């Protein structure tokens, strides 16, 4: 070992490379997983009725629609933007779909109307953010109110029923697992691969880390962001139709307040609110964590006030841990 060689001079300024196990384990998703395991243990201690895989899967179907949108939202947040309108988009898509089929348009066409509406809503958000250069948080708070308002204009204060055969997506079992859960798992794998393995995915991370740099290396940031907003709209529409199928009827207040749950899932999974960091795996685990924790408390008849406290503490703990881990590992 000699001193003064060029290699050592270079490495003196950089932090020592992290060992492999450190890279693999010291990350926000690991914390989410630990919390999930604690949650399952706590739930089983709180109530004898909790540890029933069929019940947990069934409970997950209630949150599956939000969880599906949260996966796409994770990508939007990683790209440095936010979308707070998806729950309202769900309601408007579902209302348009229900209204169209109620008006005798035929199911395939009505479903196309619902999905098309979602696409247009995503496009509208995208145009406002990208073409008009407006901050996405303001734009999507605006469209959150606008889309919900339009849903109420269309549906009024009444509920619109959907045809009997369309009801019950959560009762369809694939190998003993409810279909909404299967859709969520498959979409997680798919988007996880896209984000983690493809050039498109790497570009999303780069845009969120440093948009100017991304532009300079020739990444079409505007096109990618627009794609993400349109994906948001489509995912919301699908989620809205799934909710309509689960509930059997549509009202303007469908999914009310769901945007907070979606953001919560992304945050609990270690997605960094300022962009550039986060994984689909994290959001996947966080969706389960949320379901496990709230189901465990509800089935144990824990007072709602305490449930809110626990969820709040969970979020704060995860944000602190996420920040700590990122500050330690990505200097």
């Amino acid at each position, binding site marked *: 070992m000699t001193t003064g060689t060029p290699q050592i001079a270079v490495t003196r300024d950089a932090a020592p490379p992290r060992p492999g196990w450190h890279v693999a384990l010291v990350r926000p*998703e690991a914390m989410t*997983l630990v919390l*999930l*395991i604690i949650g*399952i243990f706590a739930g*089983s201690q709180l*109530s*004898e*009725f909790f*540890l*029933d*895989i069929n*019940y*947990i899967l*069934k*409970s997950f179907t*209630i949150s599956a629609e939000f969880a599906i949108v949260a996966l796409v939202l994770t990508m939007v947040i990683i790209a440095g933007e936010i979308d707070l309108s998806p729950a309202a988009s769900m309601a408007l898509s579902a209302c348009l779909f229900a209204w169209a089929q109620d008006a005798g348009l035929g199911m395939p066409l009505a479903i196309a109307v619902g999905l098309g509406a979602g696409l247009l809503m995503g496009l509208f958000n995208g145009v406002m953010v990208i073409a008009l250069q407006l901050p996405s948080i303001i734009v999507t708070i605006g469209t959150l109110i606008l889309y919900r308002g339009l849903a109420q204009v269309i549906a009024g204060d009444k*509920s619109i*029923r959907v045809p009997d055969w369309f*009801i*019950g997506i*959560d009762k369809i079992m694939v190998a003993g697992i409810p279909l909404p859960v299967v859709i969520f798992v498959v979409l*997680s*794998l798919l988007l*996880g691969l896209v984000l983690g393995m493809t050039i498109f995915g790497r570009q999303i991370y780069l845009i969120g880390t440093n948009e100017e740099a991304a532009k300079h290396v020739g990444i079409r940031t505007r096109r990618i962001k627009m794609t993400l907003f349109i994906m948001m709209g489509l995912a919301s529409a699908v989620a809205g139709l799934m909710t309509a199928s*689960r*509930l*059997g*009827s549509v*009202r303007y*207040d*469908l999914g*009310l*307040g769901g945007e907070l749950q979606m953001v919560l899932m992304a945050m609990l999974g270690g997605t960094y609110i300022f962009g550039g960091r986060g994984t689909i*795996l994290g959001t*996947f*685990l966080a969706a*389960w964590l949320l379901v496990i924790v*709230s*189901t465990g408390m*509800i*089935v144990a*008849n824990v*007072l*709602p*006030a305490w*449930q*809110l406290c626990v969820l709040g503490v969970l979020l704060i703990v995860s944000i602190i841990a996420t920040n700590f881990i990122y500050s330690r590992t990505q200097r």
Partner: protein
Amino acid sequence: MLKKSMLLGLATSLVLGGAALAQDPLKIVYIGKNTGNPYFDSITGGFVDACASLGCEFEFVAPATAEATSQIPFIEAQIQRGVNVIAIAPNSPDALNQVLEDAKSKGILVLTVNGDVTGNEDKRDASILPVNFDIVGRDQVEMVGSLIGYEGEIAILSATTEAPDQNKWIVGMNETLKSDPKYAKMTLVATVYGDDQPEKSTAEMEALLANFPNLRGVIAPTTVGIAAAAQVVQSRGLAETVKVTGLGLPSEMRDFVKDGTVTAFQLWSPYNQGWLAAHFAKGVLEGTIKNEVGGTFEVPNLGTITINANNMINTQAELTTFNAENIDNFDF
């Protein structure tokens, strides 16, 4: 990592031993609209007392907010807990359809208490509501008549012009005044609307006093209206000449009754809804009560109860009258 969580899921499935449930005692749960509502405390009180005497287990649960779908996870949790009876004050007439159907298919008796799933009555077994609204108008006329000696000018201070319940009662009041000779010496001089806003109700009450100096009684069949009318009468010291009555909450009216501004007013007893629901549920599940339209059954303290069309059950034939003697017994 994905794999890991799947394994975890598998592990939990291996651990589960199936929900083996003991069948007795009878387990009843009441799912309220939301937490922190004293009106529901009173209904719950009826359940608690009935379950204490009937020997069943009772729990009250409610979501934090009264959104249309917020009760769904609570209903599913209660199905999972293996309760025998789900009583619920539904937050939506239709969003609960699928999960209530689930509950019924598991053999759970589903009752709507203090509210119904109108239009989806087949999703519940029976509905328990406070009183038959057809008789409210008649009872209110009798109330004000007894206060003013069945003689003199009276007026009605209602909620909004469109309020369906109040309008139904006002029709009943008019018919009773016209058709029953007992009230022949009473004249209805005005019907005014305070829109269930305290300020507007107060202004309308002031106008009534100014326009009709011979006014003897006011019926306010709304909790906001009666409180506003009582406030006006109290501040003007007119308690001896103008009698205010109507439908009010004991908690809001207590002071007016105590200082003599208001002699008596009416409402129903939320407590009795819980009391009746628990007795009905136990009877139906044990086979002593048949849940058939037209059938009757006995409930301690309430007498003979009839199951009306659409399996609707009213807890009381008449409104409950609150006065200085009994008002302290009510806490809603």
